């Protein structure tokens, strides 16, 4: 019997469940390695070479090098692991979150200052065409 995933009708949200965890195991463990300053330096010096040591899939490597956080999540990454990448880049959670929304950094920051994204129309897939 397949695992029940009652959360799949929530729009714009990927739950880090067992399927994602298994898919992203090596990607997330690579992220953990960036908690050491010397590894951050090695990664920044030659990202491709560093990633090659971690047996990631090609799609995972490309997503990391492009800093495409939606793609990294789709490949099994979890935001708290991926945080080590944007921390290595000297960036914040707000930067990463904004990058996943299709909004500019300024638009996203303004939305947060205005009270954040409204739950209205954002609770179920299909509302307001959020698909």
């Amino acid at each position, binding site marked *: 019997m397949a695992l029940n995933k*009652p*959360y799949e009708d929530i729009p714009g949200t990927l739950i880090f469940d067992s399927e994602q965890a298994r898919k992203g195991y090596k990607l997330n*463990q690579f992220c953990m390695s960036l908690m050491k300053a010397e590894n951050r330096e090695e990664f920044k010096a030659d990202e491709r070479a560093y990633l090659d040591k971690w047996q990631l899939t090609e799609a995972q490597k490309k997503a990391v090098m492009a800093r495409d956080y939606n793609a990294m999540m789709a490949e099994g990454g*979890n935001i708290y*692991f991926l945080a080590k990448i944007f921390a290595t880049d000297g960036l914040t959670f707000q930067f990463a979150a904004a990058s996943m929304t299709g909004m500019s950094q300024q638009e996203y920051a303004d939305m947060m200052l205005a009270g954040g*994204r409204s739950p209205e129309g954002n609770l179920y897939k299909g509302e307001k065409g959020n698909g």
Partner: protein
Amino acid sequence: MARITAGVTSSHIPAIGAAIDKDKTQEPYWKPLFNGFEFSRKWIQDNMPDVVILVYNDHATAFSMEIIPTFAIGCADEFEPADEGWGPRPVPVIKGAPDLAWHMAQSIIQDDFDLTIINKMKVDHGCTVPLSLMFGKPKEWPVRVIPMPVNVVLYPPPSSRRCYNLGKAIKKAVESFDEDLNVQVWGTGGMSHQLQGARAGLINQEFDTNFLNKIGPDPESLASIPHLDYVRKAGSEGIELVMWLIMRGALDDKVREVHRSYHIPASNTAAGHIILENYPREQKTGKAA
């Protein structure tokens, strides 16, 4: 005997820690949030606990994908701040309370909660930011701390009810410890926020307000909230609110709210903060002095 006197909840987001570390708390963006803690920083000086049981979630710091405990307790003598990728926060090493922690572990496991015992652990912003919010920038933390990390990163996290009941087991454990200690339980994280995907930035003030209104007088109703409701209504990271229920379960049935604040935004997050006190116990008589 040890006793739990109060519970505190607060956000623990890293940007708040960075604002404190870089002395930005009086800048226009941050000032409203820190104003919400002015009362709290005076209150804690007047109500200084010996030990804080600090319930938080590890953010892929001490626990990688190798080992993921649902509930854990830190029994070490001390806990260093971790390097999460930005370098370690410049905050004091946290001193533990191993005698009480080991006692709690034994009592709580015998109460059917299979805690993972941790004797070596670095702690991340989840643990250090609430201390900074309450104590500012001291040379040493004025309290000993028992860190209790809860998994809310990998699905499924523990349920609201399970967390609330763990709080009750914490209360029983603390109250059966012989040493005369003033103990507070802090529940950290939340409130509504989502850090990922096209829906990032979700804030649900109605959900948060209801949670703040009920955490004191009606925690039973909150203990029935299913995982799906948190994620759908309060965002994928809004699930951190289950940790508030651990704090609440550890307090008495009747509590007194002495302070609350709520601010949007702290980076991506609605930052909620509440202080609940137990009513003073009547002095027991007949015990030899």
